């Protein structure tokens, strides 16, 4: 923490005015007054509503589908099925298979959709669609799916489209191999050193099989889209998406028109966390709108989100670690089995790789398998795959600390991965902040006040965990313009998911030396804005922020040139302060930006600049969490009483936003550890499809969250910034489960630790409710 504070002071002393300050979000007032418009808030005259018919079978052949009665129903304008999809669609892509074709592969899979004048008409019409199924053997459990005699549920050997996953990070993906038969859709293998020798050298070996559940991203806003075609065959889609250029390209494939004929207008987005990269409703709305010849709105219900969405994967992870008496780790063996559901899109490679990305262990062997089952297919959820593997790794490391009676932070400091060390795929690391995060937690008053004292019959325990994430950095551009009144306009194409627009305003204000109020950030649609990557992989500030900074530098240069000409001084002699350029040698010579704008218009034309950047190396972010819990041994209830997380963000362009990101991620980690699990019955039917029994943490369940910002600069990011959004979700879940293990004095092998599982771990009887 001391390092960080010193580094920070130096930077502020180095002259930053706007970046590094906790500016209020520029969308704050629209958000608190209800003025921000989200996906479902858009409507058009003559608009139709949608209802979806979903599969009631986990695996079946559709033998008959008759839509004639539905089409004849009052108010119905269109009924769409797989007949309306392109023939050459990729059979391995969930998103391209908007409707099930010959086979349904999971309960909840869309089979048909109706567009009608009212929601009630559409709902009634859906019930009139006649559908016959021939049930087929289904596979629900991923380990059973890997057995040689398991029914094979794959109906296609089409290559797997990983483009969406690579948005979050492409680290590790080169090593992935697709398989062509059976239910294992891909596998990955990493190894270094001599595993047997490493274990032979060890004084102690810990091992376990760690299971994580299916979780739903549970953005509060359900997927929503409004699609309209014009007479010339151009499509406009308003939608809640994390990446408007990405979804534009995906929609274009499905409606089979050039992407330039599709305009996506990204609305305010009510959370995404990876779950709004794909088009759960956009493609459907576009297809129905073309068929109906009228605008179509498609909004799904919460029950359809939980029972028909794209959640985060369950996994079964085996971890075995060998270490010397002093805690030095000598060998690591890991095997990841990730349940991808009915379509291959699980973040299995990165989950496998991350097992070897936290500690520098000379001998390791890591194997990963992505397995198809007849359940909802998965997609990204904030640092996809990482909470699963870090839970497994850190549970084993926690057990190692208990066995060796070593301080958990000391054990981690002894083995931490450092600059110059290599990840399992051979990538050497630049500067990272793992050590600083461990020290920041160790030195924090919340950690210093930790306790193991029982209270009113409740058992108390505390623990820590570490995690990291590579992130992405796609190509991006930004357009900056000097307005005639001297203010600055910034045009970007990146969705404002996490407060990034406020960060862009700060960056532009910094570079152009104007107050933040003089910067206008505009999110253009896909026809207007320069390209931007999706708001995923924690990359928007890192990638688009770099483009804004470069554009800002260029616009500043142009402004200075015009001013220098007017003032008859050299550009180098000019200093910009609060929107005024002043000569350093002659204080009488000054000109404000509005006059510069006017002069430019009269001379060479309005001043505009574009900042652009290519794909950059990733800027990994590490985080360390501390948790303290009270466990009721009678009921199995876990109370989270303290939660602390330190994260290296390189440089916090907006510390308030960064704190909010850390706190939000930490509480999502609590969901992983204790409260959240999407349950399936033996037939693969999701059974808890409402927030009543799919339990998000509430304000009453959650303690104050202490967020510590650690800043180890990254050389590529703006002002040293690195990725921010994702790492915070990674270690808290593992820290909490480790704290539960410490409290109950038993190893914990499952997330979430529901009351039933706590009682089972304690060897207590569990009631009928389990």
């Amino acid at each position, binding site marked *: 923490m001391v390092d960080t504070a010193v580094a920070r002071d130096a930077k502020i002393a180095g002259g930053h005015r706007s970046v590094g300050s906790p500016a209020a979000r520029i969308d704050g007032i629209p958000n608190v007054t209800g003025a921000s*418009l989200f996906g479902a808030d858009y409507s058009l005259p003559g608009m139709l509503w949608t209802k979806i018919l979903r599969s009631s079978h986990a695996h079946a052949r559709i033998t008959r589908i008759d839509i004639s009665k539905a089409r004849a129903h009052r108010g119905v304008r269109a009924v769409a099925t797989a007949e309306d999809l392109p023939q050459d669609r990729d059979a391995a892509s969930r998103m391209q298979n908007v409707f099930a074709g010959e086979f349904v592969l999971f309960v909840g899979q869309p089979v048909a959709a109706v567009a009608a004048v009212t929601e009630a008409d559409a709902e009634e019409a859906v019930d009139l669609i006649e559908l016959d199924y021939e049930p087929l053997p289904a596979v629900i459990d991923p380990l059973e799916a890997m057995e040689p005699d398991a029914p094979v549920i794959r109906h296609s050997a089409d290559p797997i489209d990983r483009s969406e996953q690579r948005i979050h990070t492409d680290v590790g993906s080169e090593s992935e191999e697709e398989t062509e038969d059976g239910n294992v859709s891909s596998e990955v293998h990493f190894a270094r050193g001599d595993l047997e020798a490493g274990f032979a050298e060890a004084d102690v070996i810990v091992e376990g099989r760690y299971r994580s559940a299916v979780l739903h991203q549970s953005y509060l806003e359900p997927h929503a889209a409004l699609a309209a075609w014009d007479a010339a065959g151009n499509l406009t889609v308003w939608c809640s998406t994390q990446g408007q250029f990405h979804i534009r390209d995906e929609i274009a494939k499905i409606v089979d028109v050039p992407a330039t004929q599709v305009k996506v207008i990204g609305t305010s987005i009510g959370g995404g966390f990876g779950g709004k990269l794909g088009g759960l409703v956009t493609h459907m709305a576009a297809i129905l709108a073309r068929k109906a010849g009228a605008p179509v709105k498609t909004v799904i219900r919460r029950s359809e989100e939980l029972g028909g969405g794209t959640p985060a994967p369950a996994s079964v992870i085996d971890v075995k670690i060998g270490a010397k008496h002093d805690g030095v780790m000598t060998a690591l063996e890991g095997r990841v089995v990730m349940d991808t559901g009915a379509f291959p899109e699980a973040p299995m490679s990165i989950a496998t790789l991350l097992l070897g990305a936290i500690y520098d262990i000379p001998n390791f062997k890591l194997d990963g398998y992505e397995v198809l089952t007849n359940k909802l297919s998965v997609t990204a959820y904030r640092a996809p795959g990482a909470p699963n593997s870090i839970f497994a790794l850190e549970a084993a490391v926690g057990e190692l600390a208990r066995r060796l009676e070593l301080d958990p932070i000391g054990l981690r400091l002894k083995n931490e991965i450092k600059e110059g060390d290599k990840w399992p795929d051979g990538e050497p690391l630049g500067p990272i902040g793992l050590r600083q995060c461990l020290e920041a937690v160790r030195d924090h008053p919340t950690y210093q006040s930790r306790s193991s004292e029982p209270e009113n019959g409740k058992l108390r325990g505390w623990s820590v965990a570490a995690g990291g994430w590579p992130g992405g950095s796609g190509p991006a551009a930004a357009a900056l313009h000097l307005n005639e009144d001297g203010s600055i306009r910034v045009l970007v194409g990146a969705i404002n998911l996490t407060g990034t627009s406020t960060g862009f305003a700060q960056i532009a204000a910094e570079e152009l030396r104007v107050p933040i109020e003089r910067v206008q950030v505009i999110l253009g649609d896909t026809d207007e804005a320069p390209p931007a990557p999706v708001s995923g992989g924690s990359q928007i500030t890192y990638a688009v922020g770099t483009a804004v900074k470069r554009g800002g530098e260029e616009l500043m240069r142009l402004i200075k040139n015009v001013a220098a000409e007017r003032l008859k001084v050299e550009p180098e002699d000019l200093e910009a302060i609060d929107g005024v350029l002043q000569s350093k040698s002659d204080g009488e010579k000054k000109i404000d930006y509005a006059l510069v704008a006017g002069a430019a218009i009269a001379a060479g034309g309005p001043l505009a600049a574009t900042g652009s950047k290519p794909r950059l190396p990733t800027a990994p972010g590490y985080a360390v969490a501390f948790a303290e819990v009270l466990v009721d041994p009678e009921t199995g209830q876990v109370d989270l009483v303290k939660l602390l997380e330190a994260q290296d963000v390189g440089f916090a362009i907006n510390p308030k936003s960064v704190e909010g990101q850390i706190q*939000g991620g930490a509480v999502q980690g609590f969901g992983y550890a204790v409260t959240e699990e999407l349950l399936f019955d033996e037939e693969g039917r999701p059974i808890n499809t409402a927030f009543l029994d799919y339990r998000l943490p*509430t304000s009453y369940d959650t303690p104050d969250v202490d967020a510590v910002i650690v800043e180890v600069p990254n050389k590529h990011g703006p002002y040293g910034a690195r990725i921010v959004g994702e790492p915070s979700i990674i270690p808290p879940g593992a820290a909490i489960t480790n704290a539960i293990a410490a409290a109950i004095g038993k190893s914990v092998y499952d997330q979430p630790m529901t009351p039933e599982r706590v009682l089972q771990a304690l060897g207590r009887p569990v009631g009928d409710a389990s």
Partner: protein
Amino acid sequence: MSVSISMTVNGWLHEAAVEPRARLLDFLREDLGLTGTKEGCGTGDCGSCTVLLDGKPVNSCLTLAAEADGASVTTVEGIAADGYLNPVQAAFVDAGATQCGFCTPGFIVMATALLDDIPNPTEEEIRYGLAGNLCRCTGYDKIIRAVQTAAAGDSPRIPLRPNSDAS
């Protein structure tokens, strides 16, 4: 078949014919265009659709429009007063208590009702009082701080529509 209702919403009187099954949420969003009130779950579990019905918070997804006949309804669009954000709204902006913003209208309305009921709540009372409103982004910490700020009377004074005639 439709039902005639008369309702005061954010101070304006509305008379309308609604379907008997229409929810108050649908009436506000679709008939009146007040889209600030959000539907997050439709089952009363998330609180995003919270509005004040005769001053008391209700889930508008669980209330029929016809049930609100004769009532006075306040939505997030009508909760600011005298040309300024109300203290809860202002504290949310200042504290960074709004991230994606989707749950925010429900929290604003619920927290306003909470402070109306308990002007000086403890942190526990705030956390309990807001437990029916789900937020996925913030981890609740900054929301709790914002409500504490509003309760303490320390909210900044932030004008609403500073360029309009009303302010």
